[in-house]
């Protein structure tokens, strides 16, 4: 039968508390993984990788990171671009200093560096709340971008002020540099994304996640029932920045290859990822995926229609795209403020009762 709990008996505690308690969901999850790992790498080419798949995978990581902070812990942050830049510059410095270490380790280390910076900028969140905090995180955004732009040590004194990723190999395949195949890039990002998603999902339904949600719903009340706000807020900042740092590192090393901080990690990036989180659904891992997919696919789709089909000049198409994205965001917020994840939840509820809704 379609989407039923009936007949699916749980006999152990492990089975009872699994992520996908309904068999249909579980099958869907395995099929998705199978397609992502088994089918897509065989058919992917450079255009699809750079236009759709890589941005989607990387933004999904960043969106999961930001969703932990905004959706689960309730601390609004506009500093995502700056934290991504920390990840990118950390991975660049690490790769140029220790070229022999596998890149996966560098990416994870870059995540830890970003987590440390995130905790530093998260400290004021103990005093500052709501919109004041959102604006305060702008300090992180502008200060970090300025720092990477002005301090030559970060870009190894290169004349252009750009950072360019060195070639690196893992298990005999190129992961970064011009010789990398689309498949290798895709698989590398996919593996990290799956890892991030599993960790995030399990963190958010465990003790830490419950503490974050208690703080989000009302921090004073949470404090009274014994949640340490210092602990909860700073772990949220640390975990979130860790993921965002990884996303920044991948964005620079695997996707762009060369980056200029004021272009690649500016304030627009912060807003873009915040949009992904809001449109996808606050406090939902699935929502992060959905939001990232939506905002990656929409411009590609619009560009194909406006420039490819109607033959309009590209600058006009870019302006129209801005209008359409803006209007869609507003329309989306009006129609479903809880995002795509909520639509999905409602659809599942309906599906459970289908075809006998009464």
């Amino acid at each position, binding site marked *: 039968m379609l989407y039923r709990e009936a007949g699916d008996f749980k006999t152990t505690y492990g089975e009872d508390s699994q992520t996908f308690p309904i068999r249909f969901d579980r099958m869907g999850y395995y099929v998705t993984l199978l397609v992502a790992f088994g089918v897509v790498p065989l058919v992917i080419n450079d255009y699809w990788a750079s236009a759709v798949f890589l941005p989607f995978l990387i933004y999904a990581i960043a969106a999961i990171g930001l969703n932990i902070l905004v959706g689960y812990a309730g601390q609004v942050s506009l500093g995502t671009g700056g934290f991504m830049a920390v990840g990118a510059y950390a991975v660049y410095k690490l790769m140029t200093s220790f070229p022999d270490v596998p890149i996966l380790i560098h990416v994870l280390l870059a995540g830890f560096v970003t987590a440390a910076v995130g905790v530093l900028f998260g400290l004021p969140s103990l*005093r500052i709340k709501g919109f004041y905090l959102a*604006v305060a995180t702008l300090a992180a955004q502008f200060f970090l971008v300025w720092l990477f732009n002005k301090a030559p040590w970060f870009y190894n004194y290169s004349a252009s002020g750009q950072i360019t990723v060195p070639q690196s190999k893992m298990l005999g395949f190129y992961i970064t540099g011009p010789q990398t195949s689309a498949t290798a890039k895709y698989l590398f990002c996919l593996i990290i994304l799956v890892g991030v998603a599993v960790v995030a999902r399990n963190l958010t339904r465990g003790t830490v996640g419950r503490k974050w949600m208690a703080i989000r719903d009302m921090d*004073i009340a949470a404090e009274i029932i014994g949640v340490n706000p210092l602990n909860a807020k700073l772990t949220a900042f640390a975990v979130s920045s860790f993921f965002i740092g990884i996303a920044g590192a991948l964005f620079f090393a695997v996707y762009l290859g060369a980056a200029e901080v004021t272009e690649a990690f500016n304030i627009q990036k912060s807003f873009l990822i915040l949009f992904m989180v809001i449109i996808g659904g606050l406090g939902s891992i699935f929502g992060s995926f959905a939001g990232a997919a939506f905002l990656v696919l929409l411009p590609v789709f619009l560009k194909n229609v406006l420039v490819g089909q109607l033959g309009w000049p590209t600058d006009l198409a870019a302006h129209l795209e*801005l209008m359409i994205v803006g*209007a869609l965001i507003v329309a989306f917020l009006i129609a479903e403020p809880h995002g795509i994840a909520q639509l999905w939840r409602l659809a599942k509820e309906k599906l459970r009762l289908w075809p006998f809704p009464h």
Partner: protein
Amino acid sequence: MPDQVLYAIEVTLNGLMTGVMYSLVALGFVLIFKASGVFNYAQGVLALFAALTLVGLQNGQVPFAHVINATFGTNLSTFGWHLPALLAILLTAGIMVILAIIIERLVLKHLVSQAPIILFMATIGLAYFLEGLGDVMWGADIKKLDVGLPQGISDTIERVTDGWFGYGFFIDNLDIVATVVAVLLVAALTIFSQYSKQGRALRAVADDHQAALSVGISLRFIWVLVWSIAGFVALVAGIMWGTKSGVQFSLSLIALKALPVLMLGGFTSIPGAIIGGLIIGVGEKLFEFIMSSPDLAGAWFGFTIGATENWFAYVLALLFLVFRPQGLFGEKIIERV
């Protein structure tokens, strides 16, 4: 007086003038936040849109010329007239009112009682939309805005200060005009909100939505009103900034500079917006002056850094808020369980 002190005074004066410009944008934020609790990110884009519309009307540009040409293969550009500045300003103000009505109808009405973050995101969406609309309507090139305001360095001040100190201060005429306009604007807003019927209603709504509704004040009318006023303030800010640095996309980025101004002053206080603007303006100019001068920072710290204006305001606001979370003049935040 030693040269460094004179330079510092000049920098301070210029900082005050820049601060006034920031305050003009911040003012629109405060008005909307007080009346509807919406944190209006689109305020900067409203200023951009107003300035674009003003230039377009003044020069008789055909709206949507670019789209029409692309679709029908025509070659439209202007109607060929040139409107007087005052008429164009009045027409633009009218368009801002219409825009306020449309925003209320299409966006705000449907988002009543949503969480503040949702409303905030909606205004970001609105900002994207208006930015695209402005570009599509009037074209994205940098435009010169001239409504007859005096520009250039003020000769009088240079001559007088030269006589006093032996060093002439460079102050932009436009900045002086902006200061006068800002003072007039604040005075007008204060009188309006204190003495007119609508102004009282506005303050009542700001105080308590529910209570205001229960004594028969129409919330929707107040929202249109306050967005119209914010649109008008945006028009003034757009004229000032547009005359100063041309009408271009970066105009919408000053909105971001207005945010730390708000934080310093407190989101709910009009005098706070002004004083916050002045503090930020002076602070960032002085800091930049000190940190980039080889004689000062170079002598004290052994190094100089430049372009600190990008982040100084935010870091200052951040540090300040750690000690006073509600800003200088904001309402004290009382938390209850």
